[in-house]
């Protein structure tokens, strides 16, 4: 759970009555259990019990609560590890300390684990900005000094691809119930060459956020002819052109359609926003690859699908449909300054926009924001045939941008079986089925990522507003489980590709290239250079491995 989403739930959903209702529901769940036998009953009771710590609406959880939850969720560890089994073992854990979350929670969760097993954990806390350089330098200079690492899936290419990780033992897979993961986090994500390395603790994807009042306002609907939110990019573009000249029903200033972050340069993360458009055109249901050709690593960024996405943006820019100074708007601006501030009718973003819409003091759109999966396209480019195919019902390919955080064990422990078991046991404790529910519902820095997290009854019983949870989490779940989701390639240096693409893209948008094709060709040329520098054969092998093609 992102902290601001928690605040949103607290502000919008929890009243004294609601809290009592939730508590009663939790009590009933814990007493009555679910009709699935004794163990299911115990599990439900445990889940209800931890969701009441400290209770939605009872303030932010503290270290005492983390420890309490950790202790209650120690059951699977007790089943696999004898008391004191790891006495004398010392492990080093590297992770983040953003917003006093991540490692700060892990410490509390693992306190009871340390007490029970006898192991000791030393912590390396890093700020987000320091994390990537620290990890990359450790890898590049061969100075990996941590046994357990909290890491994003895009770095699997840099670590698993180089043999720096330890393969997950089978008992861990059972302990954490991996089958419960949402569709897109199932293998090949978390695996390399068929071996599993990752304990998932988070999920990420882009979803489509829109202003519901733009589709009910008489003047805007008359001008655009649309009374339902668009589901295709062609409709989004059409709406953006037609809404120009109208007034925003909420703020009274000029209305705008979709907000592309035309600055794009955002340390590589801005590229996701072009991909939001492009995946609908470029991610064919019959082909797992959409950024590179998996046999040659030849970039697809300059194929007709990607060029069409760039052309869409260029056309809208030429039509003057964006707010003034959009060329200097990065994704942060489009989301938190523009959309939440009442400028613009639609954008794609991670989950933060949904939660901030109603919790942020600067947001004015909290009551009129709706969510869905990213728009699709009537046709999709088939890289194999070079033709545009027209799937029935259109092509939808949610951009599963960034694959969330996971816990990994490094190969430093591989030679010491006791230490190895200890490291995996600690990691499994953090990735457990029940403890993850608590992390999904309370501020932790992590989002829902298991199918069992989307049992809305549990959320409602805990005190959440059902309508909000269904709308907001529902768009995430639909994206996660989409059969044609565009999954990020987990190859070394993936953000280097994104970063240079951003530089070239803004050159194209500022008119330094003659066309969308020329812009895309410049990106492709830069990508080829990076591939050659990192090593083409190696990249091909790792790209295939990341797509599960080996």
């Amino acid at each position, binding site marked *: 759970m992102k902290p601001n989403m928690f605040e949103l739930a607290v502000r919008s959903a929890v009243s004294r009555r609601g809290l009592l209702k939730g508590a009663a529901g939790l009590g009933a769940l814990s007493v009555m259990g679910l009709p699935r036998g004794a163990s299911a009953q115990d599990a439900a009771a445990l889940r209800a019990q931890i969701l009441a710590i400290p209770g939605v609406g009872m303030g932010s959880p503290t270290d005492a609560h983390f420890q309490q939850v950790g202790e209650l969720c120690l059951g699977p560890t007790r089943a696999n590890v004898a008391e004191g089994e790891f006495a004398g073992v010392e492990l080093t854990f590297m992770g983040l300390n953003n917003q006093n979350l991540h490692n700060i929670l892990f410490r509390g969760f693992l306190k009871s684990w340390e007490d029970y097993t006898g192991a000791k954990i030393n912590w390396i806390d890093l700020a987000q900005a320091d994390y990537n350089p620290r990890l990359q330098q450790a890898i590049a200079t061969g100075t990996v000094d941590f046994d357990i690492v909290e890491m994003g899936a895009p770095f699997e290419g840099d670590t698993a691809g180089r043999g720096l990780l330890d393969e997950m033992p089978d008992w861990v897979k059972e302990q954490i119930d991996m089958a419960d993961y949402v569709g897109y986090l199932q293998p090949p994500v978390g695996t390399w060459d068929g071996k599993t390395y990752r304990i998932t603790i988070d999920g990420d994807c882009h979803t489509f956020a829109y202003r519901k009042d733009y589709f009910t306002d008489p003047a805007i609907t008359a001008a655009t002819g649309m009374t339902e939110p668009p589901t295709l990019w062609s409709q989004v573009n059409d709406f953006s052109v037609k809404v120009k000249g109208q007034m925003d029903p909420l703020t009274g200033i000029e209305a705008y359609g979709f907000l592309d972050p035309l600055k794009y340069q955002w340390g590589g993360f801005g590229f996701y926003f072009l991909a939001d458009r492009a995946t609908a055109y470029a991610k064919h249901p019959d082909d797992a690859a959409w950024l590179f050709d998996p046999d040659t690593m030849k970039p697809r960024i300059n194929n007709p699908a990607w060029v069409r996405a760039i052309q869409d943006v260029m056309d809208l820019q030429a039509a003057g449909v964006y707010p003034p100074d959009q060329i200097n708007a990065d994704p942060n601006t489009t989301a938190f300054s523009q959309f939440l501030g009442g400028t613009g009718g639609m954008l794609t973003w991670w989950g933060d926009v949904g939660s901030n819409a109603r919790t942020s003091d600067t947001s004015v759109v909290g009551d009129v924001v709706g969510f869905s999966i990213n728009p699709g396209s009537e046709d999709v480019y088939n890289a194999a045939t070079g033709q545009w195919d027209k799937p029935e019902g259109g092509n939808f390919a949610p951009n599963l941008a960034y694959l969330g955080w996971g816990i990994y064990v490094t190969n430093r422990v591989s030679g010491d079986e006791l230490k190895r078991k200890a490291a995996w046991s600690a990691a499994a404790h953090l990735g457990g089925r029940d403890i993850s529910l608590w992390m999904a519902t309370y501020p932790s820095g992590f989002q829902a990522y298991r199918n069992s997290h989307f049992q809305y009854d549990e959320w409602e019983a805990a005190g959440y507003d059902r309508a909000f949870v269904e709308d907001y989490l529902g768009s995430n779940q639909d994206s996660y489980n989409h059969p044609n989701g565009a999954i990020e390639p987990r190859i070394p240096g993936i953000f280097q590709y994104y970063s240079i693409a951003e530089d070239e893209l803004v050159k194209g948008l*500022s008119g330094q290239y003659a066309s969308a094709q020329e812009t895309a060709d410049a990106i492709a040329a830069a990508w080829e250079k990076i591939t050659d520098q990192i090593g083409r054969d190696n990249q091909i092998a790792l790209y295939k491995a990341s797509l599960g093609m080996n």
Partner: protein
Amino acid sequence: MRAGGRDAHPPLSTGIRLSTTGDLLHVVTADDLPPGRIAFGRGLMWGTGLLLCLAAALQTAQAMGVIDLGLETWRPTLYAFITWAIALCWGQVLTRGEQGKRALFVLPAVLFVVALTVFPLLFGLLIALSDWNLSSPTGRQFNGLDNIRQMWTDPFYWNALGNMGWYCLAIVVEYAIAFGLALLLNAEIRARKFFRVAFLLPLMLSPVAVSWMIGKSMLEPRFGPLARLGRALGWDTPSFFGDPLVAKLTIMAMDAWTYIPFMMIMLLAGLQAIPKEVQEAARVDGASGWRGFWEVTFPLMLPVSLTAILIRIIFKLKLADIVISVTSGGPGGATDTVTSFIFREYRDRSNVGYGTLLAMVYLVVIVIAMTILMKIADRFTRPRT
């Protein structure tokens, strides 16, 4: 009498007769070093020197995979270097006596500089001539002049270098404004001390804070106060970073706002150092206010002015924080600086080898440019005869 000269010295009244040749002025003790002490000193220096060479050679061999000593870091070589450095200093005293003690005033500093500046610079040079992408499994590969060739054809780098030329030219305007402010603050005006502090405030702010307060807030195109002012003055769609030229000028203005106080305070110090009698004499001679400034104050201020401008150029060449925070070099590279481009190349793209080369080349360009500028400045400030 000149030091070390051959002038005759009268014998001292104590009867001690000092040598009349060699360095006479500074030697306070007569060195009569026993051969054993000298030999020990030399042995100490050579022994520790050999130890250092041996440690470095062994560790290099391990780094190249020739042998495996089980060493995880280069600390043994570091310790050997420190031992050698101490022995070298001690050895100077042992072998050269008083002369050696004199060397100790400089030698530790030289060794320190070599260890912390020259060696990293040489190592940096090696990296600059390497293909080293942190994501590459092959690690660092020496690639000769390839990075220089890449730089030669890299439009991003040349664009950034061109921008730096424009940014540096803006210093002329900054100087004029700073001089004007310094003259005002040097005059007998009310609340002079308050204004001196107030005008210094922008310099005390972090450029990142300036970026957010001004670049992201005051210049925000919809609700920012300056955008509102622009609209009130008839500018339909005020955009301070949308157009390449306007964006460049806005970055120049923000940077100027931060650093004009620095030039101003240097110039003010210069103005206050000029004796008032000079101006009074000019006035007595009938010089008008302008002539008094142009023919008296300005020439007297030239040395300070040139120093202020040179230091400002050095600051300007490092311009990056405002650009990275506000525009990321956009739109389309219009505001990019060499440093912000290197930052992207190095941090976002982990291209350590190429990024280091760009930084090295930039360093050389700066050193050459500054040397030329200082030569010119020297010619300007030399008193006319």
